[in-house]
């Protein structure tokens, strides 16, 4: 019952397109700001454009990483010979390709969160993408090692 006024306030914030600080003050986590506020690019103040451009390039680097992973998955599937069963490699490549789609969406979310943080002079949000990425590359490496050991 005590949460009701808070929820009402939050709904008002969403309806008005208020900035994420107001939502954060109400206890919503930072990552909850996806699609909440359409006018966030006008809130706060313009950061030094060099930081904005660096943020844009970081976003593009994440997109490139996702595309490189996807290319690796497609190439693995096309050039693989003698990895049995073939279905297994198709499933593995498919999972990696789906993950690269997730990375591209995460890249946008991260760019947006960074931009909002910079507009409000806040510290940059922590990046869930980086440990996720490290784990993925590690898993692919282990998988490749297993395949090489079994079939090499």
């Amino acid at each position: 019952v005590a949460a009701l006024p808070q929820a009402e306030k939050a709904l008002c914030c969403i309806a008005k397109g208020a900035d994420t600080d107001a939502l954060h003050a109400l206890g919503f986590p930072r990552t909850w700001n996806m699609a909440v506020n359409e006018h966030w690019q006008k809130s706060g103040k313009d950061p030094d454009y060099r930081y904005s451009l660096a943020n844009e390039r970081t976003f593009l680097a994440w997109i490139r990483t996702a595309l490189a992973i996807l290319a690796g998955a497609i190439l693995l599937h096309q050039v693989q010979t003698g990895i049995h069963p073939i279905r297994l490699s198709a499933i593995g490549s498919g999972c990696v390709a789906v993950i690269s789609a997730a990375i591209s969406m995460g890249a946008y979310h991260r760019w947006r969160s960074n931009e909002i943080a910079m507009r409000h002079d806040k510290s940059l949000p922590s990046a869930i993408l980086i440990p996720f990425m490290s784990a993925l590359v590690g898993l692919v490496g282990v998988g490749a090692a297993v395949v090489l050991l079994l079939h090499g």
Partner: protein
Amino acid sequence: MTARDPGLQPERTLLAWLRTLLAMGVNDCLVIRAGWMGGHGSLTIAGALLFTMTVGLTFLALSRAIQLHTVSPTAPKCSLMSLASSACAITCTGGVWALIC
């Protein structure tokens, strides 16, 4: 805040865009190749559509570069960024299709 010399920032940003779009084009070609070699006509057409999308995005990136060089170096519009990440996700979908075929 005093005016700053943008230096090579716009140029580096343009190059990052071009590298990204090149990677996307390579993936489109891989999808087309998978469709062509496997004899899947619909996959080939999907790859061609993906390539067209990448070319369209290249024009958007070029207009962004013109904005950076001539108008003012500011943050890109969120519509451009969401388009780019959606295009990447759509390319990934095409890639998954190529893997399933």
